[in-house]
């Protein structure tokens, strides 16, 4: 664990440095880094699209971009953010890197499949970027029929092909994680000694494996429809466009949990590490992940309250959507209880975690509001919905991703990040985020519809506030990119366990050796067992 030693020691980074050794690697840690670089690239592209939309919305009239361009911007923003950032960000980067380490394994169960998943991701991304280059696509990320199949003359086929392909990278990752967690745990690593990050990724992998194929078959039908006019959902031949919506949301609502469950896992780790207490109600938190995964499959109809689906179905979906809020709320309460009487330190990852709890609570509670039928009908397709899901996706998932990146940065790179800069940008992001999206709740309640490039002048004040917030948020995102990259080269060397965590990944050197541990670990204590940690430390010092 000596810092000077780990510098000269062979580790997964310095063992070979050729480009070939990176592109053909089967090391889960390196594949995590490949994914990291890729998802940040796509975050930047999709973020740029969002920035252009916010600029357009600075004034009530459409003056910056054409209406058609605006449609393509929000479609590109949605498609790329959802499938090329949100879904892979935490599992494929942090999960890939740390799940094997946390369970004491040398690698994932199928290292080649793991690498294949990254290549499949890149091929899917090339198709999607191809759709952007060939003129873009204007259907919205939901590809609703009949617009997408009969009317839109944009690159629907290429874009849906990209989404179809990238789905398989999720499936490969999911299969790998499930089997790895089942079969690769170190001696003594029982299910209830697993860190909660592993539990949430396990639940998440179940969703990826079971929901993604439905998306694949659905976009395949859309692609065939658009390319050959086959018409599965074409009303003129008896097809039912509502059926498309059912199929789409049967995947895409669970996909929301694909985006949030791994983030919740990160938060469990951060809250525990920086309050130095075991996560309150460990088993309840673990099982709430599985409950979210299971219930998440039964609420898709709440996206379709105004679609003309049966009102009885809507009532049931509304009820189940209230129910799915329960396991999420359990997590929030348990994190808060974990903080109680803990030794809290406000390091950067902790600031992100606390920010997450606040923003997730707002996003979650507005979700419960939207689950109630009458209210949802009132605000459907308004900025209220936009604000709600951005509180979950950006406010929660991106915060967790950044918090996790800071927390594990010393392990990944072997370098420390600058703490002051970290805290500063965490606060900038929190402020910028709220200024961007809180006004959108009010805009939505006042009736401003989403997906329009222009709006009546009375909405301008709040839109200006939102755009101002977006520029602060942009600075908040650029800062970590700059100082983290700087730290990779110039940062202070990181000790093996800078946060004094009992979790297995911290018991290895920073950065870890190629096989993760110098000696295969044997687990004798529970996750978050700080008392055991202190004892072991005392024995070493004494």
């Amino acid at each position, binding site marked *: 664990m000596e810092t000077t030693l780990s510098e000269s020691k062979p580790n997964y980074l310095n063992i070979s440095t050729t480009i070939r050794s990176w592109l053909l690697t089967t090391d889960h840690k390196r594949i995590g880094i490949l994914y990291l670089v890729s998802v940040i690239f796509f975050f930047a592209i999709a973020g740029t699209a969002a920035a252009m939309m916010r600029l357009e919305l600075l004034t009530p009239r459409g003056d910056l971009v054409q209406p058609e361009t605006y449609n393509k911007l929000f479609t590109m923003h949605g498609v790329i953010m959802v499938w090329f950032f949100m879904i892979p960000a935490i599992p494929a980067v942090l999960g890939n890197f740390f799940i094997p380490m946390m369970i004491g394994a040398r690698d994932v169960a199928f290292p080649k499949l793991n690498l294949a998943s990254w290549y499949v991701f890149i091929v899917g991304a090339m198709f999607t970027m191809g759709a952007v280059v060939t003129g873009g696509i204007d259907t919205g990320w939901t590809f609703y029929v009949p617009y997408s199949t009969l009317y839109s003359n944009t690159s629907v086929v290429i874009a849906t092909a990209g989404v179809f392909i990238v789905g398989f990278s999720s499936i490969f990752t999911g299969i790998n994680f499930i089997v790895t967690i089942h*079969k690769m745990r170190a001696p003594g690593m029982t299910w209830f000694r697993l860190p909660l990050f592993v539990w949430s990724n396990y639940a998440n992998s179940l969703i990826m494996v079971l929901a993604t194929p439905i998306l694949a078959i659905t976009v395949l039908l859309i692609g065939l429809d658009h390319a050959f006019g*086959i018409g599965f959902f074409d009303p003129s031949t008896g*097809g039912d466009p509502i*059926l498309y919506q059912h199929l789409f949301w049967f995947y895409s609502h669970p996909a929301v949990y694909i985006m949030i469950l791994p983030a919740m896992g990160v938060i469990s780790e951060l809250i525990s590490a920086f309050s130095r207490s075991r996560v309150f109600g460990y088993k309840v938190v673990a099982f709430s992940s599985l409950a979210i995964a299971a219930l998440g499959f039964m609420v898709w109809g709440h996206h379709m309250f105004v679609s003309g689906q049966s009102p009885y179905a809507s009532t049931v979906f509304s009820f189940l959507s209230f129910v799915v809020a329960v396991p999420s709320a359990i997590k929030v309460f348990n994190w808060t209880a974990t903080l109680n009487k803990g030794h809290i330190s406000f390091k950067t990852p902790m600031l992100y975690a606390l920010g997450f709890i606040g923003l997730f609570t707002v996003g979650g509670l507005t979700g419960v509001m939207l689950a109630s039928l009458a209210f949802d009908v009132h605000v459907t397709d308004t900025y209220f919905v936009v604000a709600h899901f951005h509180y979950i996706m950006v406010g929660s998932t991106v915060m967790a991703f950044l918090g996790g990146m800071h927390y594990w940065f010393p392990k990944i790179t072997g370098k420390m990040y600058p703490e002051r800069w970290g805290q500063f940008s965490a606060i900038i992001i929190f402020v910028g985020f709220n200024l961007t999206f809180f006004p959108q709740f009010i805009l939505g309640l006042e009736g401003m519809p989403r997906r329009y490039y222009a709006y009546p002048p009375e909405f301008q004040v709040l839109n200006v506030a939102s755009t101002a917030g977006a520029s602060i948020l942009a600075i908040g995102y650029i800062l970590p990119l700059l100082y983290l990259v700087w730290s990779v080269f110039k940062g202070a060397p990181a000790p093996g366990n800078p946060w004094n965590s009992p979790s297995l990944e911290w018991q290895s050197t920073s950065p870890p050796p190629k096989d993760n541990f110098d000696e295969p670990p044997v687990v004798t204590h529970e996750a978050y067992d700080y008392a055991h940690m202190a004892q072991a430390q005392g024995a070493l010092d004494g």
Partner: protein
Amino acid sequence: MAESQSLVAHHFSTLEQEHDAETMGMWVFLATEVLFFGGLFSVYTVYRVIFPGAWDAGSRILDLNLGTLNTAVLLGSSLTMALALHAAKLGNRRTMVFFLLVTASLGTLFLGVKGFEYYHKYTEHLLPGLGFQLPNGMPVQVGLFLRMYFVMTALHAFHLFVGIGLVLVLAVFGWRGKFTPLKHSPVELIGLYWHFVDIVWIFLFPLLYLIDRS
């Protein structure tokens, strides 16, 4: 022990752990596949409930004899696949390769018959997207049935095509003596996949060909 240790991929501890992991991985993959086809079966079910008459009429268009023949061919291939695995377990290299080749041939025969059926439908203008023209008096939703028929069977045929390729690769590796009674999990895993593709057909056949044959 030392000999079996060297066969184990380096990130596994024992051969048993490796085998367990591979088998579980295949089952999880098959779960994905079930949901993949499941999406289509749901679409089929919804439309069949809405348009039962069109589904009956559409089903009668299909060639029952060829469908039945193909069912027998595919069931036979599952048997030979199981026999190949049995031979692999016993270490009978020649028998294993023989049965693998029979399996691949039966799969190819299935695809040939399917292709003939497709061609026949094409000449009758019943292939959606290519000069599609329903016979007079047929309800328009029969077209929907035929679309479901083509997409479901084509997706199945694609899976079978991949399966044939995999079985042929197995035969080549088997001929070179890559599989031993101790380590032959690729035969077992691809066997699982092959049986899965068969089972999909066991659902497709009655749902498409046998709806209204009284």
